[in-house]
């Protein structure tokens, strides 16, 4: 996770993306494009994100394995269940926890996406569900697509003449809201300028923010890559690890206090 963060911050710190506004000679519209001066190493970032996802998912399975007895009665089938429905958990999830005591099963059931949310759509926003989908994709299917995207825009120096151009500002603001950059000179938004007003200068009148995100069409749903991984990590520490660690064999009170300290440290970071 740290490696991904360092790499992506370095990339965004370089002038990889430059906004350009030009005029369409056919229609007279103004067009905001992004010139790509350096393409992101999408595969390398995807593999790094995959490593983080693998370790987060694997950490949950290791936890379940340790909670299912020593040795677990069914070691080859032990895993941390993640289900988007109560029925799914009751039918298949409990089997993955064979050997665990009732309280452990209750605690794990309580964090199931399908039980925390009323609808599958809402459950699919749950950090554990996102981890489940990301993990399956990165292990068996495709390298996770992690690339550059526009995040949003600020308009710090519009000046008195442009301040009246609210319509243009809104158009640009909406046009650059969280969209992946996939092509050279990709068009983000076009608008009809107010007659007689100066053209929006992308270098003087607007600040475009870029971020590194998962593919919107993939299991990461276009979310900021590092933020999502940190969110999942933090969620696991606080909502899964912390309630379950007192049930780990051989875990003492001082160990659990240490785990709490680690969880809190993660929040601070």
């Amino acid at each position: 996770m740290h490696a991904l963060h360092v790499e992506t911050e370095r990339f965004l710190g370089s002038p990889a993306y430059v906004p350009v506004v030009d005029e369409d000679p056919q229609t007279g519209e103004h067009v905001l494009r992004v010139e790509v001066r350096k393409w992101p190493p999408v595969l390398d970032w995807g593999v790094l994100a995959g490593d983080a996802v693998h370790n987060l998912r694997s950490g949950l399975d290791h936890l379940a394995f340790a909670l299912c007895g020593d040795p677990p009665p069914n070691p080859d089938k032990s895993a941390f269940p993640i289900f988007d429905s109560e029925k799914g958990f009751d039918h298949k999830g409990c089997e993955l926890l064979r050997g665990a005591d009732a309280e452990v099963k209750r605690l794990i059931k309580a964090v199931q996406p399908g039980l925390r949310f009323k609808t599958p759509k809402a459950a699919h926003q749950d950090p554990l569900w996102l981890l489940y989908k990301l993990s399956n994709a990165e292990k068996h299917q495709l390298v996770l697509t992690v690339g550059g995207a526009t995040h949003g825009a600020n308009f710090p120096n519009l000046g008195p003449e442009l301040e009246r151009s609210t319509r243009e500002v809104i158009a640009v603001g909406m046009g650059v809201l969280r969209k992946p950059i996939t092509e050279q000179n990709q068009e983000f938004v076009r608008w009809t300028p107010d007659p007689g007003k100066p053209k929006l200068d992308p270098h003087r009148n607007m600040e475009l923010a870029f971020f590194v995100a998962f593919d919107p069409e993939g299991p990461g749903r276009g979310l900021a890559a590092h933020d999502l991984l940190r969110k999942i990590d933090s969620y696991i520490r606080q909502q899964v690890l912390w309630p379950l660690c007192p049930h780990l064999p051989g875990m003492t009170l001082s160990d659990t206090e240490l785990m709490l300290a680690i969880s809190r440290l993660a929040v601070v970071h």
Partner: protein
Amino acid sequence: LTDSPSDHRLAGAIAKFNRSKEQFDELIVEMDAFFNQDPKPHHSVGEFDTEKWEWVERFQITQEPPLRLGVIFGDCIHNLRSALDHVIWQTTLLDGGTPDDSTQFPIASKSEAQFEAIAKRRIAGLSEKHRALVKQAQPYNAGDQAHRHPLGVLATLSNTDKHRVVHPAYSFISDDPGPALDALVGSYQGEDSSPVHAFWMAKRGTRLMHGTPWFRITWEPGEEPPREVQVNADMTLGIAFGDIGVAASSIRHIAEAVLKVIQAFMADFPETVWED
């Protein structure tokens, strides 16, 4: 595989494979740092055993290999295993099939019947030709050596790392004691016959555990026992992982087997361009 143009459909598999190489290199650096730290994590202490009339050197372990080595090892294994699955995903698409959540590279170490049972779900969308390639690569084809087949070992290591525990790391002797013993036997330079009755060294693969004997010199009965023996030899140590005791260096063999599979499939992707 140094080049992985992102427009090749197996670029993801190659990126995974190359990442495993980076992790292997990282593992080697961390292992070297572990062995070369000051003070050393292992040393030897000798004493004369008056009952057996022999000088015995025993390992003293001041520090076990850190768990972190097992985590890096696991990451490396994960990417190699995953590269195989990615090949099957793309090949299923190439063959006009529809990959799903069951699609994976099957690994069967027990029998052809086991392979057929797994393959039904894992490679349902592959052409006959590609199915045959997968079948050809199966560990069960190695007969009674199947458990040592690189892909069989990979499957075992990957399953344990993903679902159960971080592979524990331990140090072991990676030197063959033969040449050192040969040199010792002929090394006596005294005028009388050698007071040494026999030398013994632990064999290659011996796990370093605290107090384990690794070197013995048995004196001839009646000979004056030594007050001190200086052991100047440097022993080459390695690190092995997991219950099955896979040496870190064995990852190379596993990687070669994975690479062979990737290359076999890559040949059938029309965008593949081979260079000398």
